[in-house]
């Protein structure tokens, strides 16, 4: 019962935040609303019993990437909203593209055979133990490859810093 | 170059060893230095309850002494004003009228005697210059104020009270050396 209300709360919050990302005049506000949207989505993950993904979502997206976004926006000093004059051609293109996207999504959802069974959806797959087991058994290769990718990126960063620093 | 103290250290830009570059030994030794201070006796004096002791011959605000019969000693010779390196002392002299013998010891006295405490550097030269043992520096401090004119001390505040109980004790400043110095006739102001 509570879960249902929480679901609606998080959904409304996520949609509101996403809309506000587009509506806000100040770039900083957009970034902050985007963070709010991420937090709301993390709430959804928790409702799906996927705590690990929820927390990682908060750490990585809300905690690191959005902070970098905010950082950049602050450094660029985009406080004054400069409204670029857009030509009619761009406006028409944008409307057509958005319309096409809308049609595609509606079509896809209509085709999709949603069987909503609450008991089936709530699984233990999102728990850390199960997730770890799956990652290290079924998805071992992709996991290790992505791990090496991240490690090399990190080593590369440190190396770049070393070269320019000293 | 001859070092003034044996505490000076020669600066060298040698490459630091690994242990030094770790900084941890340095940090730990630094922390123990501060910890030593943590247990050290505190230098603070808790002011209103406890006051810092003044030296016996502290040079604070001045007093114009009276003699044993309660007469002012000052004769307004102006030697103190002359000796004053800060030019803080001004005075106006007046002749003693008949019937004022119980007020002034000498035939001439200072009608106005002012010391600007903002100019005064409390060097004590006025005291040394005085041939009549009239002006002395005391252990009292000059009280702070909000206006400059508060610091110009006139006779009302400089002359000590005639009441024998309220006399200001300056015996500590009248050391035998000072008395001996006062008798030295080679000093110009001690000559009659």
């Amino acid at each position: 019962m509570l879960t249902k209300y929480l679901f609606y709360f998080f959904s409304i919050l996520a949609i509101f935040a996403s809309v506000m990302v587009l509506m806000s005049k100040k770039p900083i506000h957009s970034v902050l609303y985007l963070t709010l949207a991420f937090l709301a989505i993390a709430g959804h993950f928790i409702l799906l019993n996927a705590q690990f993904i929820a927390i990682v979502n908060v750490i990585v997206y809300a905690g690191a990437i959005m902070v970098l976004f905010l950082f950049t926006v602050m450094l660029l000093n985009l406080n004054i909203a400069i409204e670029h004059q857009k030509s009619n051609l761009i406006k028409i293109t944008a409307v057509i593209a958005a319309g096409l996207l809308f049609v595609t999504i509606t079509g896809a959802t209509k085709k999709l055979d949603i069987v909503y069974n609450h008991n089936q959806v709530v699984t233990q797959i999102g728990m850390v133990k199960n997730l770890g087991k799956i990652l290290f058994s079924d998805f071992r290769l992709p996991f290790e490859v992505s791990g090496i990718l991240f490690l090399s990126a990190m080593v590369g960063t440190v190396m770049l810093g070393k070269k320019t620093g000293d | 170059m001859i070092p003034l103290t044996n505490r000076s250290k020669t600066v060298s830009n040698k490459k630091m060893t690994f242990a030094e570059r770790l900084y941890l030994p340095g940090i730990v030794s630094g922390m123990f230095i501060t910890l030593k201070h943590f247990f050290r006796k505190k230098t603070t004096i808790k002011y209103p309850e406890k006051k810092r002791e003044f030296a016996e011959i502290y040079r604070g605000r001045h007093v114009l002494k009276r003699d044993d019969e309660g007469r002012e000693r000052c004769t307004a010779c102006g030697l103190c004003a002359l000796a004053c390196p800060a030019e803080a002392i001004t005075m106006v002299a007046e002749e003693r009228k008949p019937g004022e013998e119980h007020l002034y010891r000498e035939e001439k006295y200072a009608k106005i005697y002012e010391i600007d405490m903002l100019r005064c550097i409390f060097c004590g030269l006025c005291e040394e210059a005085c041939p009549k043992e009239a002006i002395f520096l005391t252990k009292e401090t000059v009280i702070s104020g909000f206006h400059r004119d508060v610091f110009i001390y006139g006779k009302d505040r400089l002359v000590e009270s005639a009441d024998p109980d309220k006399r200001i004790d300056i015996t500590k400043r009248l050391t035998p050396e000072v008395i001996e110095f006062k008798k030295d006739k080679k000093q110009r102001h001690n000559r009659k």
Partner: protein
Amino acid sequence: MLIFKLILIVSILLLSLLIAMYSTLFERKIAGFFQDRFGPDRAGPGGIFQPLADGLKLFFKEEFMPAKADKFLYILGPSLTMLVALLTSAIIPWGPGITFKGTHYYFQVADINIGVLYSFAVVSVGVYGIMIGGWASNNKFSLLGAIRASSQMISYELTMGLSIIAIVMMTGSLSLKDIVTAQHGFNWNIWYQPLGFLIFLTCAYAECNRSPFDLPECETELIGGYHTEYSSMKLGFYLFAEYINMFISSAMISTLYFGGYNFPFMDSPALSVNAVGIIGTFVLFLKIGFFGFLYMWIRWTLPRFRYDQLMNLGWKKLIPVAVINMILTGLGIMIFK
């Protein structure tokens, strides 16, 4: 059980606030003692009412807001900082608990199976309070402070995570309850992870914006850093949150590396379950007190880092060392288990 949890939440909340309040006094007292002075001792016996006087003063100060400040964000900044500072206390096991009328009450608000990650998430969101406040003040010093805070916290969060991974590898669980239980008695993690502890300690100092990493509020360069434009209780919230962060991070350090509420000889038959419960909580607070003191001790010993030194230390030294520590731990587990 629900009532117990509620009591626990309220008492932890009040306790954090009280401890944060008195940390300000201890900070000043300890600063004084390190500098051969007494520190504040006028308000009440030994200055015991100084925090009340300070709080009262902050309440009566003028509420100032810069003319071109972003009003909503300006208020959101300190509120968020305060909120986030109080959040982490939920997952810390405060004691082995007591048995009352047949039910065992464990002193932990929420034993979530991602405990360590939760604390990370909270810390990583914590930077928003400082950034928002610094930006909304519309002051270049505040902005510089906010930027410094964000880059510093992102850099050190990474290292912190890497140093904790070693602990998680050893315990095999992310839950703080499991981590503490695994350190039963005197089997503390510090004996296995001295390097990890040093890295974690450094990162905790950087995350709390404490000296020698207090660059976001560096007085000599940035006036007050991100809280330059803040006054009254909004400033109070920022300062208060710093002390709560210190308290919580001391608790985290004790929990992760120094066995939390565990103490030697806790299995001796002379002690009943309830006695262990009470002594355990007391021991945990002793450890927290020691680390709180260490925070202040270091603050009044070490000079502030320069900004490039901070970044060099974080990225070029601590991260490689943390990775090496992680690999060594993995090797150790492989060999000895």
